[in-house]
Each structure stands twice: as structure tokens, then as C-alpha cells.
């Protein structure tokens, strides 16, 4: 089985694909408004702490989990966690941990992508609208334009299916000819689009007011506002690190499963983090916010998630060359989202190859159909209810796209730091160009990473409780009772996906390691 698995074709292809996996919409869409909202430069203090204490150790751990799992022929997280956990606990307990991890990764790859592919479709649609001048007329209100867009079945379906079809086609081609080839094209284009936009941003001058310049916008956004540095900001920073690095999702592990047993993981993992930070802090932080400040002053920084689809289009309308730069911005978002969504898509294909013995082509078609099924409620809600609250999407994102990433991160941290311990340490240094020092493993991977992740989880739980997400009718839909069924539907879907995910992961482990579960002894070792 292990011999049939594909490998990455080149080191540069692997690193670009991994960077593409990590670099997503969060880098360009979420980071700018997070730094604006949570204390400017002061936000970077907990951000940096979270990056060092959780981001880098978990990134290396996920590469390690994946490469080791791939050696045994696994591309999914359940058996990967089992293989590491059985070093410290009985095979039965390890199988339960594997089942839980597999369940969470299954949930992420199905449900996060169910809305993520829609957002990619929107970016593609908006790139088209930018080029064709769809929202460029003076009379167009970009807020209303966005609401009309998500309520228009024709445009939503066309661009959703285009995005989904392209993903399916790329994954169908395999690791080297599909994912790696597309990453080699898309990642350089993404960086080029980013540089073009930065140059344009920094040369905007002061078209509205003498005080509103891109440099002043940058200075304003980066000036530390220490009074805003609190637990909420720290939690937001830690959440941003999980989201931006794609950790706690299982997709980094899946890509790492296509490594050869002695391929480097430490240096490659740290390079992935560096490239992601370049895209997030330098590109992501220097485009949207300074543009918004130049045209709208401080008011532009309060746009939140509407920055990309409402505020920026409004600015592109009045900017010289706005059609081109608008298209460039949305294509950048499209490429960033595409290279992450493809990783989630491939995880499910790997699962079907592994579990059902399907060939890649067939598995890609099945996953395509699955994404149509789970993606339908996301686009049907605004069309059918004629609202723009996106309650189904919000409920799925709150739990699967944010909260449970931390739970999975904690499982990984405990399994690597405390259950596999010395074995994981030896494994991650095998074949690696840079070695993880023993002190780093002890201080970070055994102590700081699990502890910080646990604290992060506790405070996230408190924030979720205070925000009313645990209530039978969550606070965000209390005033819109017609949307409550959509929230309940989201909860039901999550439950069903989790039951299937746990059963599948546990079954896969039992199928290959059943003898170990019965005898309590390790039998299969490579």
C-alpha cells in the first residue's frame, strides 16, 4: 500500500504547495481587520507569542505526524494520531484518540470547505465584475451589490461550480501533475499580484484629504495601542495563528504524508511558516488597510469582514485603474483560497482511496458530489430567506472553522509531546536539514505548546459562552427567528458528519491494527 502512494516531485514544489496550503483567505481578509481591531502594533505581541509557542511547534508536529503516517500508507489524521499515541497509551485508548482526531479533521475538510469554496467563488465572481465594471458605476452601492450578489442564484452557482470544478480537476490529476503543478503556477502569481497591489497602494498619494495617505494609514494601524491589549486580543491573535497556518485541520499532515520517509521536515516546516508570514504581515497588512485609510480615513479601518467585498470595491470605483486593481485583488484572494481549498479536497480524496479503495479519479468525482451536497445550504440560505445574515455559514464557521481547530491542536500537542515523546523527537530530526534541539522539544513541545493551547481553549470556551454560542438559540439569531432552523440544520449536519467521521477513522484503525487492539501489543511497525 505504501509503495503505491505518490510523492512530491521537487522540494520547491512541496514548499510552494505547503505554503499555498497555509496561505489562504485569512492572510489577506482576516489579518488586516484583526490588527486594526485589536490594538494595532500591540496585537503583534500575543500574535508573535502564539506563533512561537503554538504555530511553529504544531507546524513541525503536523509535518512529523504526516510523514510518519505516510510511511504506513495513511493520508488521514485518525491512523496518524493512533501511530504516535500508541507509544504512550494502550492501543485501544490510542484508537479512540485517533477516532476523535479523525472525526475533527473530517469535519473541517468537509464543512469548512462547504463555505470556503463559496467564498472562493465570490472572489472569482468579483474578479469578473471588476474587469467588466459590474460595480464601477457611480450609482452602485457596493453594500447592496454584495447582498444582491449572494442572493442571485445564477452568479452564485456559476462561480461556485467553476471554483469547485477547477479544484476537482486539479486534485484528479494527482499530487505532482495536479496539486504541485498548480501550486507552482498559482503561488508565484499570488506574490506578483501582491507586489503589484502594494506598489499601487503606496503610490496612491492623498486623493481625498491631505492627511489620508497610505503611509499614515500604515503608521496608524501599526502604532501600538497598549490599552486595547487584553485577553480578547490575545485569543484573537492565537485564533489567527491557527487559522492562517492551517493547523488543527489535518491538511498539513495530509500533504506531509506524500513525503519520502527521510525527507526533511523541520526546515521545510519553518520555511512554510516564514512564507505564510510574509504573505500575511507584509502583503496582507500592506494592501487592504492602507487603501481603506487613504480613501476613508480611520472610518475605513472599522469595515471588518466587509472590507474585501464592500469597502474595497467602493474604493476601486474611484481609483485610477480601479478595474484592473480590483481584478488583481480578487484574483489574489482567489489564488490564496484555491491553494488552501485544494488541500481540504485532497484530504477527502485520500480518505476515499484509503477507506474505500477508490482510484483518485473516482474519489475526486465522489468528493465533488459531496461538496455540492454540503455546499447547497450555504448558498440557498440567502437566496431563500432573502437575508444576508448567513446564519448557517456562521454556525458552521464558529464551531468547525474556529473553536474545534484548537481542540484538534491540543490533541496533537499532547500526543506528540507526552505520548510519543522521545520517539517523536527522534523521528522529526530524521533526515532533517535543521534539527530540533532537545531543549526546544522539552520547553516548547512538551510544556509551552500544550499549555498555551489549553489556556487558549479555556478562554475561547469562556468567550463562546459569553457570546451565547452555547445557547439553544444562539444570540446572533435571537432577533431573526426565521433563521433559527438554519442554525439547527447546521448543528444537525455537524453531528452527522462527526458520527460518520469518528466511525470511519476508528474503522480504518481497526482494519489495519485490529490485532493490536485485541492483544494490547504493538505488532505493525515499519
Amino acid at each position, binding site marked *: 500500500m505504501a509503495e503505491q502512494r505518490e510523492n512530491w516531485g521537487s522540494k*520547491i514544489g512541496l514548499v510552494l504547495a505547503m505554503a499555498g496550503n497555509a496561505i489562504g483567505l485569512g492572510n489577506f481578509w482576516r489579518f488586516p481587520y484583526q490588527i486594526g481591531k485589536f490594538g494595532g502594533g500591540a496585537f503583534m505581541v500575543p500574535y508573535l507569542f502564539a506563533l512561537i509557542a503554538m504555530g511553529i511547534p504544531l507546524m513541525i508536529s503536523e509535518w512529523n505526524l504526516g510523514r510518519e503516517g505516510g510511511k504506513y500508507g495513511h493520508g488521514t489524521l485518525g491512523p496518524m494520531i493512533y501511530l504516535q499515541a500508541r507509544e504512550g497509551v494502550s492501543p485501544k485508548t490510542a484508537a479512540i484518540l485517533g477516532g476523535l482526531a479523525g472525526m475533527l479533521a473530517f469535519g473541517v475538510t468537509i464543512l469548512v470547505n462547504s463555505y470556503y469554496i463559496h467564498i472562493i467563488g465570490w472572489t472569482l465572481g468579483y474578479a469578473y465584475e471588476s474587469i467588466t465594471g459590474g460595480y464601477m458605476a457611480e450609482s452602485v452601492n457596493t453594500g447592496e451589490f454584495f447582498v444582491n450578489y449572494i442572493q442571485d442564484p445564477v452568479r452564485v452557482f456559476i462561480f461556485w461550480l467553476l471554483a469547485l470544478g477547477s479544484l476537482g480537476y486539479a486534485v484528479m490529476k494527482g499530487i505532482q501533475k495536479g496539486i504541485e503543478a498548480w501550486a507552482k503556477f498559482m503561488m508565484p502569481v499570488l506574490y506578483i499580484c501582491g507586489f503589484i497591489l502594494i506598489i499601487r497602494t503606496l503610490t496612491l498619494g492623498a486623493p481625498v484629504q491631505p492627511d489620508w495617505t497610505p503611509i499614515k494609514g*500604515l503608521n496608524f494601524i501599526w*502604532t*501600538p495601542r497598549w490599552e486595547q491589549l487584553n485577553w480578547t486580543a490575545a485569543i484573537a491573535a492565537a485564533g489567527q495563528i491557527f487559522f492562517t497556518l492551517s493547523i488543527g485541520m489535518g491538511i498539513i499532515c495530509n500533504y506531509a504524508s506524500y513525503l519520502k520517509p527521510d525527507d526533511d521536515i523541520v526546515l521545510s516546516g519553518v520555511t512554510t511558516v*516564514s512564507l505564510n*508570514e510574509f504573505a500575511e504581515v*507584509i502583503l496582507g497588512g500592506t494592501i487592504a488597510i492602507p487603501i481603506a485609510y487613504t480613501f476613508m480615513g480611520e472610518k475605513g479601518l472599522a469595515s471588518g469582514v466587509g472590507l474585501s467585498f464592500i469597502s474595497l470595491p467602493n474604493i476601486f470605483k474611484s481609483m485610477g485603474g480601479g478595474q484592473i486593481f480590483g481584478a488583481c485583488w480578487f484574483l489574489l484572494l482567489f489564488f490564496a483560497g484555491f491553494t488552501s481549498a485544494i488541500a481540504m479536497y485532497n484530504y477527502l480524496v485520500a480518505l476515499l482511496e484509503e477507506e474505500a479503495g477508490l482510484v483518485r479519479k473516482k474519489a475526486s468525482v465522489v468528493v465533488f458530489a459531496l461538496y455540492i451536497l454540503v455546499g447547497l445550504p450555504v448558498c440557498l440560505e440567502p437566496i431563500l430567506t432573502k437575508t444576508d445574515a448567513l446564519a448557517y455559514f456562521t454556525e458552521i464557521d464558529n464551531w468547525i472553522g474556529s473553536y474545534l481547530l484548537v481542540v484538534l491542536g491540543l490533541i496533537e500537542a499532547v500526543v506528540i509531546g507526552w505520548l510519543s515523546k522521545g520517539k517523536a523527537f527522534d523521528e522529526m530530526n530524521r533526515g532533517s*536539514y535543521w534539527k530540533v534541539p532537545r531543549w526546544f522539544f522539552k520547553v516548547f513541545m512538551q510544556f509551552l505548546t500544550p499549555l498555551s493551547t489549553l489556556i487558549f481553549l479555556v478562554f475561547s470556551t469562556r468567550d463562546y459562552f459569553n457570546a451565547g454560542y452555547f445557547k439553544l438559540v444562539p444570540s446572533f439569531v435571537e432577533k431573526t427567528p426565521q433563521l433559527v432552523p438554519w442554525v439547527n440544520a447546521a448543528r444537525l449536519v455537524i453531528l452527522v458528519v462527526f458520527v460518520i467521521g469518528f466511525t470511519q477513522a476508528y474503522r480504518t484503525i481497526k482494519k489495519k491494527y485490529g490485532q493490536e487492539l485485541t492483544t494490547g501489543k504493538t505488532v505493525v511497525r515499519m
Partner: protein
Amino acid sequence: MSGLGLGFMLVFWAAIICACGVTLASLVKHSK
């Protein structure tokens, strides 16, 4: 305007650019 924000930003930029340079150069060196 103090310029403190820009100074803060440049420190982060420098650190990230250095990290990218060092990691990519090491990868290229080891890949040969």
C-alpha cells in the same frame, strides 16, 4: 505623527524577510 507605528512595522518586516531569506537559502543549499 510619531512614526512609532512605522518603526514597529519595519522591525516585523525585517524579521520576516530575514526568516524567509535564511530558510529559503538553506533549502536551496541542501537541495543541491
